[in-house]
């Protein structure tokens, strides 16, 4: 077993995909947390004294995000008021179980939790919608509903920021998808660490440069409990292809993930390019890039 690259004298337990360093458990925790702290401070993600909602699904990314945000907030005195915000899509055998994990996070981390449900917001659960329309494009409009539900929850909680658990692999995947689709508007937005959703509450991604492998290893070695069942409805096929492609490339060289993010960040969209402008959906009045938003469609 190789020794820890930090020369602390212990044996390594992990090879870092980003740097190739071999680290022991304690040095890995420190490197992992420090890098997220560096990401937060370099991008000036949060103003001291502000209130932050963490979008919590009970999955690995948001569980690790909530844990690390609480830890860094205390360690570096960010003076943030942290709350958990979850969306209940109404998917039996999936979201009901994962919400139990979020409730466990609430108790373990001592953070208040707000749950917004599709049923209350839209009058329908995902189970009811799929029973009515069948299995087609479920992920697409469920995603649109969830975005809106998170925005409304964040507004209701009166927070200054909404933090999501998007990791480096997710962002690289999205860059690839937007290139494959030729979606320039999304391509230029998708690597931003802060995005404004249109109603004034910025969304931030503190795990933007954190590899999925390290998130899962961190959760494992910190013994964080998370929920890991695939949604019962058809998975997003297109994202699935981008994901398989990315994972295959990562096996050859883990640096591709950072390289794709960097390429996405450096791209400049030609000013003559035809860009959609944000407007209001003519049916529900919510922000949309088309006359009728994806949810109403």
């Amino acid at each position, binding site marked *: *077993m*190789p020794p820890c690259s930090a020369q602390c004298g212990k*044996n*390594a*337990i*992990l*090879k870092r995909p980003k740097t190739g360093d*071999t680290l022991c458990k304690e040095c890995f925790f420190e490197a992992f947390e420090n890098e997220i702290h560096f990401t937060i401070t370099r991008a000036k993600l949060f103003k001291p004294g502000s209130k932050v909602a963490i979008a919590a*699904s009970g*999955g*690995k*990314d*948001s569980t690790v995000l909530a844990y690390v945000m609480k830890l860094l907030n205390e360690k570096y005195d960010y003076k943030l008021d942290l709350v958990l915000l979850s969306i209940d899509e109404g998917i039996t055998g999936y979201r009901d179980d*994962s919400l139990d994990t979020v409730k466990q996070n609430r108790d373990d981390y001592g953070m208040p939790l707000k749950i917004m449900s599709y049923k209350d917001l839209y009058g329908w659960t995902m189970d009811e919608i799929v029973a009515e329309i069948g299995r087609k494009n479920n992920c697409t409009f469920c995603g649109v509903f969830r975005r809106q539900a998170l925005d409304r929850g964040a507004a209701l909680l009166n927070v200054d920021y909404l933090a999501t*658990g*998007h*990791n480096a692999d*997710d962002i690289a995947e999205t860059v690839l998808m937007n290139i494959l689709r030729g979606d320039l508007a999304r391509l230029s937005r998708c690597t931003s660490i802060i995005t404004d959703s249109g109603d004034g509450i910025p969304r931030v991604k503190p795990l933007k440069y954190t590899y*999925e*492998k390290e*998130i*899962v*290893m961190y959760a*494992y070695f910190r013994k964080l409990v998370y*929920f*890991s*069942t*695939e*949604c019962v409805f058809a998975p997003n096929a297109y994202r699935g292809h981008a*994901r*398989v492609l990315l*994972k*295959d490339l*990562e*096996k050859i060289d883990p640096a591709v993930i950072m390289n794709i993010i960097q390429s996405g960040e450096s791209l400049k969209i030609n000013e003559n390019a035809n860009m959609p402008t944000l407007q209001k959906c003519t049916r529900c009045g919510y922000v949309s890039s088309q006359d009728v938003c994806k949810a109403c469609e």
Partner: protein
Amino acid sequence: MHITVEFGGGAELLFDNKKSHDVTLPEKDKEWIIKDLLIWIKDNLLKERPELFLQDESVRPGILVLINDADWELMDTVNYVIQENDRILFISTLHGG
């Protein structure tokens, strides 16, 4: 040879939702390496959709492997020589977010 094989992060769904398996590997002429174990798992433990677990004589990219709580990338991955009482854990990173 006795070892423990474990699954987590959603990988257990391919194994009847059972997370921990006490395994006795049969005697053979040469040493057992992880590559042999993967074939043995496919033939003896895997219940469904082998393509979600295996790819090109290794695990599918996105599945992490820990040998006695250490990253298998520190130990020559599929060529690691398995020892008595080893604990080998497969964690899927492919589920949910």
